[in-house]
């Protein structure tokens, strides 16, 4: 049995995020999905789970999540170093950086990766999409992402374990084409929502990383929707 832990769905499910791991668990009967409430000790603290998911939250809840996870920082680092799969989407990526600046306030984050984030709450919300890629076990995987955010991350992303090389769209901020974090099996991206449903090839990759059959639920339909959207994004974004 493979254990996938969905951290704090009552806090981190504001754009359909929880459906990612729900979908993954329905793909393979060997996956046990654990939903962890923010008042409970996460399963990853006491057992070697196979995958941990943290979704996007409101800014206030993001700060709450950092405080909840701070006592487990060493354990999270240990699991990342051991190769446990982590997936963080939306502003959950910022939880793992050094700090988040919000006007005069500086919120100390977990500090597991070398970058800082800045919120621009008074500015217009940034909305965009991306097409990017990374090298997986059996070749490059093209990833599609939806962004909608008030904050951006800053750091030396050229010399950073970034996840995606962006073909269309922006990366961690408007000046870089490097997006996300990929270190061992830790993956994080600013992309929102049901990341695994939007990226079936990545979902298959995660199943292979868990050493289980990589067949997907409704594989034909999910691949068709992905290919259609990829084509549409490339066509429309390139022409806009």
């Amino acid at each position, binding site marked *: 049995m493979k254990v996938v832990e969905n951290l704090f769905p*009552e*806090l981190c499910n*504001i*754009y*359909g995020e929880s*459906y990612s791991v729900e*979908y993954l668990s*329905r793909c393979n009967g060997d996956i046990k999905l654990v939903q962890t409430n*923010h*008042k409970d000790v996460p399963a990853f603290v006491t057992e070697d789970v196979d995958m941990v998911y943290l979704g996007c939250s*409101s*800014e*206030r*809840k993001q700060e*709450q999540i950092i405080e909840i996870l701070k006592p487990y920082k060493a354990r999270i680092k240990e699991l990342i170093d051991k190769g446990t799969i982590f997936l963080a989407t939306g502003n959950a990526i910022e939880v793992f950086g050094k700090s988040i600046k919000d006007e005069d306030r500086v919120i100390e984050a977990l500090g597991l990766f070398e970058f800082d984030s800045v919120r621009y*709450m008074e500015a217009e*919300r940034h*909305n*965009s*999409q991306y097409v990017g890629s990374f090298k997986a076990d059996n070749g490059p995987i093209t990833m599609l992402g*939806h962004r*909608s955010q*008030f904050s951006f991350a800053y750091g030396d992303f050229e010399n950073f374990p970034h996840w995606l090389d962006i073909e269309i769209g922006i990366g961690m901020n408007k000046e870089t084409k490097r997006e996300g974090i990929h270190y061992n099996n830790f993956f994080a991206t600013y992309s*929102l*929502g*049901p990341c695994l*449903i*939007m990226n079936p090839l990545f979902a298959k990759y995660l199943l292979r990383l868990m050493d289980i059959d990589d067949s997907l*639920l*409704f594989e034909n*339909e*999910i691949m*068709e*929707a992905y290919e*259609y*959207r990829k084509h*549409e*994004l490339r066509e*429309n*974004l390139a022409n*806009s």
Partner: protein
Amino acid sequence: MGKLKFLVAHWAAKASVVALKITKHNGTNFPGELAIKICPDFLKYIDKPETIIGVTGTNGKTTVCNLLIDMFTADGQVPLNNRAGSNINSGIATSLIHGANLFGKCKHNLGVLEIDERSALRVFPYVKPNYLIITNLFRDSMKRNANTEYIADILSKYIPKETKLVLNADDLISSNVAPENPRVYFGIDKMDSDIKECTNLINDIRICPVCHSKLEYEYLRYHHIGKAHCVSCDFKSPGYDYCAKNVNIDDMTMEIVDKDGLGNYRLISNGIHNIYNMVTVIALFRELGYKHGIIEKLMSQTSIVKSRYNAVPAGKVRVINQMAKENNALGSSRAFDFVSKEPNDKELILMMNCLGDEKHWSENTCWLYDCDFEFLNDEKIKKIIVTGPRYKDYILRLLIAGVDRAKIVDTAHEIDAPDLLDFTPGEDIYVFFGTDSLALGNKVLAKTIDLAKERGDK
């Protein structure tokens, strides 16, 4: 200098109104946009009605405004309103320009203004409602509204301190906006159909905002709407000043109880969201001193605007247009819930596509997984036609929701969708579309009605 600039802006805007009329371009925001461009604080200087009723919130604000305007009109008043334009600052400016004389003096005693939640910071510094109704706050388009905490914070920051709030006690998010303001609460007492645990994908307030413990519901209607309390601290839903009791969908009746007594009302819609809209309007009229009997009489002369929900008998079926805003999981969830509970067999056309997005990129599909497509996994729904740019995403979403593949039919082109309907006698056909695809949606609707009549004649 400011006043002079204002007058120049006002006259230019007035001239543009005439030009727009001549060129048959009524109903645009252009006069307001022009005025604000010339005089950025135009809203500060233009005269306003003596009494202003503002209406904001995620869902129901247009319906509530329409009911208020229709009822005030039936009462012999001429409320200034922004029904024909938009609910942002330029739309409100346009309405005020229309309602003012050449010197900027307002010709109306009363104003009913729909105000976009996010425009609070541009509107409330200058337009200070005597009463502000907040219908509810749910997650909306992520691209504009981010999340409910963000919107609630904006409202709390910008609502004028003197404005009296008319709030939904059954919504723990909007009922806590601007806590220092004077306020009254409306709500609907426990109903037979209520539940205790949320079964919807969207629940925007799962934990206590004070101590972060679990919220327990005495009754829950949908999403986070209901009466709740924190299991660990004193946080709880406020009490009702205007309470709907004994809501009877079969008899289409309800009672409203307040400190001065009881009123009996006929329901003008059997949808719970519209019953909330009714209770909201009644609460406002009671605040203005109207007697229950008068309110009931005025309300009986109104109806829900037909662009949002309209059933037309055609041939041997009924064809229904069902407003479901694009990129708004909540609105579609509520519509799916309502439709799934309707008694007849039905076929659906889903075309809530954000056509504007398709010109530049691919529509953000996150909302599909916030939206309760699971309601459509229902034996009375015989066929679902998915169409438009997102049809492949709809197929996948419906399958994940448990809908039988054999029931799902697709076509890329919306206008072809009615050809795929069965038009089984006695059934209802729902066409789901939103404001972004309004023109195309109306064409599909018209074709569906025509085909239904043709089939009915055979």
